[in-house]
């Protein structure tokens, strides 16, 4: 196990695997998840590889499993997910699996087909039953009249009366059939079922087609009928003559009552039979699916593992003798032991006698970057990786980010109350980690929160610390240690003055500051913002400069590790001097100002009084521009004696650092190259004189040509280096200024946060507290809920998000630009775990 400070040392290995043992070995390596295989046949088409057939079989199995899963989901049978992780089965077991799936699929398909046929049958019979029942009413009316006209009239009348009564709107129509020429003609009846929404169109069509000679009577079938594919409400209708088919199902409808009764009986018995059969079919299907549901997750894992193994085997090269597979892979050096063990296990399992061979190879390629993370550090590593994956063996900022990230966040989010809410949320997620992770909630937002639970927890904890320091608890202060400010006035003064400013030079101020954090008196005061701005701006710059300085110092470790002496001398040292002599000096001035100047009424100490205290920003600007400070009466121009000389010295040295950064390295490289060239040409001269005259021209030419090529290449390199160094220097010098200013966002956001929470208190909650009597309770109940919602939504969530993003920027840009190149590529080991995870994720989507 390596530490997180640098990525793991990697090595390229060659792996010789016995053909029989290859499968088992790769399976073991997949369980281990520490090996990244390289594709050795990149020019071979995916369809021409060795194990294409097996991969295809796996795909087929997966398809069958998906079909099964779909059917199981349709029936709502719970799938047993024991979370167990079965090993990849032996290749010979694949056939068994295939047979099982084949059988299951066929069985299921057959059952489904049968069920569908039965259902259709059932539907037809049900419709017929309904028709018989509905027509009964019509026929009952019909048989009463001898005269068809009379019956028709009656029918019409009844229709009218029904319509008048507003009953159900069912219509009965009789149609004299034209082909019936006999006087004793009886209308011909047809009955059927049609979709409800088609009725109006159907009616119109019938009317037109029969030129009005149609009676249509419709009745609704109240019970919904289950179509094998869809479930729809159907309508019952009955008509005499039809030319067009509106996808209506027609049913025979005997006219004689006895026939009808008989038919109805027959239909009933058939329906009953069908119901039994249908029930049995459903039972069978259910049994099959329940049995499958127990194993389906297991099967999925197995099939996906087999597929992954064959995919990997496809990356391998075949040895000439066809008895051996050759693989190339990246391996962490520290884990070679584990890999050897896994390979041995694999060989034993496959029963092969020849052990696999793992050879380390020399390579000039950039190895992949691999950081061992655990569940705590993974989230921080993810923050870094989303900027850029570290170059191989470069300093990894993640371990420092664990603290600096939540801390800078907390400077902006400083409120102990909001911090407490955040801590509790983070703690809840951490304590309930296992059950929450097992739930596999799909919501993306939840997953972001859950993935960052340790970050959230730490951010909350640090916010509580900074909140106590700012003495902000939901915008109110605690007075734990006793304020160091006191009111020393007579009653008369208070009644005269509306406002009063406490004087720090008198007994109003006890002389020693509040022990922990800001004095609670500031929360009550009118000039709180003035005081807090001065304080918060200073700490933003102080922490910013230290943060950047830390980044520059980390670059030293990078240079030292890569034995890059020239970078230490030509980059690190001038960078450090530049930053320290200008910006660290400014920080020093801040501390001097805090310590030197104090409120006093004593005339002899006037040079240290508040009105002589210089603005640090102005004096810093004056220092850089070599300007004399403006003279104020009774004050010293400088904070300490000799300040001007020291400042001039610091600025000049810092300015010298700029050309130092810009030119030193390219010039050094150029001179080195010249020296090399000189040596080469000298040797050449010597060689020429040693050899005979005859050979000289040829020899000379050859070398000359070679050297010429080399020379132009070097020149290009050199100009590139100048440009690169120029950009780097400008970036650093300008960056120091703009980055320092950029840290002022710490002040700005913390000010905004404090102001927002104060507004929320004054505009909402304090209003609720002012209502008296028992209505006050109700008002407070409502107002508190509004206040609480807004606090969570705006102050904790939105402000939290914005502070998070600003912190991210401060780390990515201001901190990491000092030492981090982030141009590596990640280590993607062949691991069943990640493969299965991604497979289930895509399946869920």
């Amino acid at each position: 196990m390596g530490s997180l400070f640098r990525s793991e040392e990697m090595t390229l290995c060659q792996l010789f695997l016995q053909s029989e043992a290859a499968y088992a070995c790769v399976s073991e390596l997949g369980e281990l998840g520490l090996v990244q295989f390289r594709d050795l046949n990149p020019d071979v088409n995916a369809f021409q590889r060795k194990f294409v057939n097996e991969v295809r079989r796996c795909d087929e199995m997966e398809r069958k499993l998906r079909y099964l899963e779909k059917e199981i989901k349709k029936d709502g049978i719970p799938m047993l997910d024991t979370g167990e992780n079965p090993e990849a089965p032996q290749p010979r077991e694949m056939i068994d699996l295939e047979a099982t799936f084949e059988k299951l699929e066929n069985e299921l398909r057959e059952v489904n087909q049968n069920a569908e046929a039965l259902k259709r049958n059932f539907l037809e019979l049900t419709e017929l039953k309904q028709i018989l029942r509905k027509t009964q009413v019509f026929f009952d009316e019909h048989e009463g009249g001898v005269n068809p006209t009379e019956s028709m009239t009656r029918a019409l009348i009844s229709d009218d009366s029904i319509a008048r009564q507003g009953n159900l709107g069912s219509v009965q129509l009789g149609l004299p059939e034209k082909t019936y020429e006999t006087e004793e003609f009886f209308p011909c009846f047809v009955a059927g079922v049609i979709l409800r929404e088609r009725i109006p169109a159907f009616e119109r069509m019938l009317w037109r087609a029969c030129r009005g000679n149609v009676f249509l009577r419709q009745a609704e079938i109240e019970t919904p009928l289950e179509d094998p594919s869809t479930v729809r409400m159907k309508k019952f209708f009955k008509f005499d003559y039809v030319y067009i088919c509106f996808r209506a199902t027609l049913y025979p409808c005997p006219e004689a009552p006895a026939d009808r009764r008989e038919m109805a009986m027959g239909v009933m018995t058939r329906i009953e039979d069908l119901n039994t059969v249908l029930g049995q079919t459903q039972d069978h299907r259910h049994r099959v699916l329940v049995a499958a549901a127990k194993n389906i997750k297991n099967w999925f894992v197995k099939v996906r593992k087999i597929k992954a193994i064959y995919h990997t085997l496809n990356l391998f090269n075949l040895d000439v003798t066809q008895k051996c597979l050759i693989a190339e892979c990246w391996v962490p050096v520290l884990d070679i032991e584990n890999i050897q063990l896994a390979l041995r296990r694999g060989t034993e399992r496959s029963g092969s006698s020849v052990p696999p061979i793992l050879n380390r190879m020399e390579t000039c390629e950039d190895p992949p970057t691999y950081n061992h993370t655990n569940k705590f550090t993974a989230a921080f590593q993810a923050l870094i990786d989303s900027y850029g994956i570290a170059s191989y063996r470069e300093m990894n900022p993640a371990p420092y980010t664990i603290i600096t990230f939540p801390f800078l966040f907390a400077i902006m989010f400083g409120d102990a109350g909001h911090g407490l809410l955040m801590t509790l949320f983070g703690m809840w997620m951490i304590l309930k980690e296992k059950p929450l992770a097992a739930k596999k909630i799909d919501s993306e937002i939840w997953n972001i929160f859950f993935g960052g639970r340790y970050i959230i927890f730490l951010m909350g904890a640090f916010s509580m610390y900074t909140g106590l320091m700012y003495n902000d608890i939901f915008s109110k202060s605690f007075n734990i240690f006793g304020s160091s400010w006191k009111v020393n006035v007579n009653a008369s003064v208070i009644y005269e003055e509306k406002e009063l400013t406490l004087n720090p030079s008198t007994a109003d101020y006890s002389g020693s500051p509040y022990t922990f954090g800001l004095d609670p008196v500031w929360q009550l005061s009118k000039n709180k913002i003035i005081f807090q701005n001065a304080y918060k701006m200073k700490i933003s710059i102080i922490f910013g400069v230290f943060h950047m300085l830390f980044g520059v110092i980390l670059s030293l470790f990078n240079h030292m590790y890569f034995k890059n002496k020239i970078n230490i001398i030509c980059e690190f040292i001038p960078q450090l001097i530049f930053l320290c002599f200008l910006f660290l000096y400014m920080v020093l001035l801040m501390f001097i100002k805090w310590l030197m100047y104090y409120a006093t009424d004593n005339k002899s100490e006037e040079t240290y009084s508040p009105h002589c205290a210089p603005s640090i920003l102005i004096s810093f600007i004056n220092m850089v521009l070599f300007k004399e400070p403006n003279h104020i009466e009774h004050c010293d121009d400088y904070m300490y004696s000799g300040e001007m000389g020291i400042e001039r010295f610091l600025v000049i040295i810092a300015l010298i650092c700029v050309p130092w950064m810009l030119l030193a390295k390219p010039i050094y490289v150029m001179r080195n190259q010249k020296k090399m060239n000189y040596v080469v040409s000298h040797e050449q001269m010597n060689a020429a004189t040693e050899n005979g005259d005859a050979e000289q021209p040829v020899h000379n030419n050859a070398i000359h040509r070679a050297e010429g090529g080399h020379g132009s290449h070097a020149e290009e390199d050199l100009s590139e280096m100048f440009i690169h160094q120029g950009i780097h220097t400008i970036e650093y010098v300008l960056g120091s200024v703009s980055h320092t200013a950029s840290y002022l966002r710490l002040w700005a956001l913390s000010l905004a946060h404090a102001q927002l929470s104060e507004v929320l208190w004054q505009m909402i909650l304090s209003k609720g507290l002012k209502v008296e009597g028992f209505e006050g309770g109700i008002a407070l109940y409502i107002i508190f809920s509004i206040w609480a919602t807004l606090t969570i939504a705006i102050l904790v969530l939105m402000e939290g998000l914005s502070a998070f993003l600003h912190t991210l920027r401060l780390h990515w840009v201001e901190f990491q630009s000092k030492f981090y190149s982030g141009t590596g590529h990640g280590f993607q080991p062949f691991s069943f775990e990640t493969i299965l995870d991604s497979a289930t994720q895509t399946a869920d989507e």
Partner: protein
Amino acid sequence: MGTAIPFIVFTVLWGGVGIGLPFVVPKGPNRGIIQVILILTAATCWLFWLCCYLAQLNPLIGPRLNRHAILLMAREWGNEIK
């Protein structure tokens, strides 16, 4: 002297966290990480406290309070108005 005591207390406290505790971190794969966490926590928290303390050590301005706040301060934080 009153000003020095909190300084000593907090310096010793955070110094203990940042310098003392890293030595007693149990051996294991995460030892380095835990040490870095402790050191950085102590350094940042101490500096933050120090800045806050120093900013108030020699106040250049006093708080401006309205009548209401003054009366309350006098009653709650001692020094009753005569």
